[in-house]
């Protein structure tokens, strides 16, 4: 990317700006502005804080689950509550932690990286954030209504999701609201990326983070309505006497699974593609080399997104699908590993013979690379139909998706926070503490989730509060790991808070290898309004 900058004066814009923007121009200071702000940086921060909070709420639920599974037998929670915990843990982590955190980064970074002044629709932006609050409250409150929170698993399969109490209706409503919020967010991001780029910022010059978000946003607009449709049908089955999925009235529960996973598989890529983008920016920075195969990265991301629409059947190999269907979904699933592999090799090639240095963001990216690849491999194992028939619904699946989601999505996000915190706040985090956070996380993550492969292979089913005695040892190991993992995340909060309050001053270009606009063109901390005059990218 070029560094030459020529200010241009777009007179129409200047005039329009003065007329329109003065009311939210009061900058930082008054906290009540969080309700009315339309500034992309404010909204980005709000998203990030919200998701950090939800990460800890979801994490506490996970620790309760692991406490219960520390030993066989029932110790802390009843089976019904246990099932609610696994359900709401997943929903909170997916819709409350990972997705909003990515949107938070999108808000902060996309306008700066393409040289725009703000998002295309700032008022809608404020809306999409504030919609999440009632949704989160609904999810929490559902624990306290008669019948408790949804206990059907995050996949909401009937018949359990048809039988549940009012907590399930609240969950469905919450998902509707969160879906609307993500659709609005996505529309905003696509419009910003396609229409608001600075002169000279062609699509193929955009940083990878922008590209992955462009593709993710399209995925979201395409599949969120499908989820909304499916859960609406659930709702009418529950209350209005329809029988889409209700077997008692001639409906077909398997059909729900098809529709759900038509949403669900693209959803897992929604949860990972923006992390691919973050990693694709951090690795070149600390390898001090441009990203290897930029164009192939773009095409690989796009192919992953397109293929993700035709592989949903790998979640339901055991429903009694014809062999032809199983074979189709098996090969299609394995096909996705090809573009994913392209990305992995490109990251490795970027590091190859680079002048590597290992600051915290880079450590998290390398952890991401190793562990995510492992998760991809266990995914490939599960893609093999005869193997999946024995491993489906066991802890092996739990191990698989935690390997792709924790080091994939969460470490991607952590890397991003450490990487951009100096830019956002103008202050440096504590490098030693960051490294502690990484190593504790990396070790305890593996203590927690690696044994779950063994448990799954030995036949331990997922989503159970109690288990046969032969599973006791590895469950105990896993629970110990989980508690270390959970509490090490407090180091992260401590580091972020003390960075904001008393970190050392950061340089405008804190990382010498960074080359996107926010590093090359803007001071640290970035001012409240940036690129009001478009930079010209050559």
């Amino acid at each position: 990317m070029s560094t030459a900058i020529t200010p241009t004066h777009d007179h129409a814009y200047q005039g329009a700006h003065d007329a329109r923007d003065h009311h939210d121009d009061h900058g930082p200071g008054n906290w009540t502005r969080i309700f009315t702000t339309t500034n992309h940086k404010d909204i980005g921060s709000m998203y990030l804080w919200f998701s950090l909070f939800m990460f800890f709420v979801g994490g506490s639920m996970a620790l309760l689950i692991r406490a219960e599974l520390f030993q066989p037998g029932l110790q802390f929670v009843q089976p019904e509550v246990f099932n609610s915990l696994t359900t709401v843990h997943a929903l909170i982590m997916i819709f409350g932690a990972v997705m909003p955190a990515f949107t938070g980064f999108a808000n902060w970074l996309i306008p700066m990286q393409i040289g725009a002044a703000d998002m295309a629709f700032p008022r809608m932006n404020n809306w999409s954030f504030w919609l999440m609050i009632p949704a989160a409250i609904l999810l929490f409150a559902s624990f306290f209504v008669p019948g408790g929170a949804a206990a059907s698993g995050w996949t909401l399969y009937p018949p359990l999701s048809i039988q549940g109490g009012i907590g399930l209706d609240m969950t469905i409503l919450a998902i509707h609201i969160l879906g609307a919020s993500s659709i609005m967010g996505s529309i905003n991001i696509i419009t910003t990326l396609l229409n608001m780029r600075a002169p000279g910022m062609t699509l193929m010059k955009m940083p990878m983070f922008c590209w992955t978000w462009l593709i993710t946003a399209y995925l979201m607009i395409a599949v969120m309505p499908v989820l909304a449709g499916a859960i609406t049908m659930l709702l009418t089955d529950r209350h209005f006497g329809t029988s889409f999925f209700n077997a008692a009235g001639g409906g077909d529960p398997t059909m729900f699974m098809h529709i759900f996973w038509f949403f669900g598989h693209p959803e897992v890529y929604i949860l990972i593609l923006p992390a691919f983008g973050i990693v694709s920016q951090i690795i070149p920075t600390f390898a001090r080399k441009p990203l290897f195969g930029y164009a192939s990265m773009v095409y690989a991301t796009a192919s992953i997104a397109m293929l993700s629409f035709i592989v949903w059947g790998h979640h339901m190999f055991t429903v009694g699908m014809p062999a032809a269907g199983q074979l189709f979904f098996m090969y299609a699933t394995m096909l996705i590993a090809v573009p994913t592999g392209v990305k992995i090799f490109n990251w490795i090639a970027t590091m190859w013979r680079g002048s590597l240095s290992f600051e915290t963001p880079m450590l998290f990216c390398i952890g991401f690379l190793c562990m995510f690849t492992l998760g991809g491999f266990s995914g490939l194992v599960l893609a093999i139909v005869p193997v999946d028939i024995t491993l489906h619904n066991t802890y092996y699946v739990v191990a698989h998706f935690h390997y792709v989601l924790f080091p994939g999505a969460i470490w991607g996000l952590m890397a991003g926070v450490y990487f951009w915190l100096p830019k956002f706040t103008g202050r440096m985090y504590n490098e030693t503490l960051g490294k502690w956070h990484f190593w504790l996380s990396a070790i305890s993550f593996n203590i927690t989730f690696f044994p779950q492969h063994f448990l799954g292979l030995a036949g331990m089913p997922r989503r159970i509060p109690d288990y046969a005695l032969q599973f006791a040892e590895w469950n105990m190991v896993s629970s110990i790991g989980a508690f270390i993992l959970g509490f090490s995340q407090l180091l992260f909060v401590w580091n972020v808070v003390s960075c904001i309050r008393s970190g050392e001053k950061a340089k405008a270009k804190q990382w010498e290898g960074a080359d996107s606009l926010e590093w090359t063109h803007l001071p640290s901390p970035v001012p409240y309004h940036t690129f009001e005059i478009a930079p010209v990218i050559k």
Partner: protein
Amino acid sequence: MGAGRIRFYFIQVFGQFFVKDNARSLQVQHTNRIMLFKLLLIVPVMLIFCASLVPLYRQICKVLGITATRSMAANTQVDASRFIAVDFVANLNTNFAWNFAPVEKHVDIHPGEKMTVNYRVTNTLPYATTGRAVPSFAPIEGGLYFNKIECFCFSNQTMQAGETRDMPVTFYVNTNIPKEIGAIALSYTFFNVTEASDGAKKL
């Protein structure tokens, strides 16, 4: 005012409800709004797609014939090249005042084919009685290839005074049955076991 102009005003005025634009110029602002409506359009399209998945899914399964999947697969275990004649006989042990007779006296089936037949039993006594049926085969080797999946002879049968009941036998003849055996007679004899079973209950 041309159609293009009307569209422009529509988008400008209507778009105002949704958004406060942050565009650098009126042109960008306008293209942003067009984009907003285009992208919003994807939402109902995908909702309709989702709803249409319900009938579509049924149709596709029907067309491809994948409704009941595996259980639909042809049973390769049936030997359709030959028939076995099976005769059903009923006997009563002495002093046992039940009526006992096969509903179907004869069936012809392929080896490997599953079949259910019934015996009709009436307790003509004025009090409840328990009986136990014991099967026997002719020829005796026939019994080796005669597999009962479910049979009233598997357990004691208690009949109330005057009760009538159909008692099923589900069976198939093993495909290994030698060529020379073309017919099997299955005969049941009911024994009165009331005292024995009452004694067992008292114990």
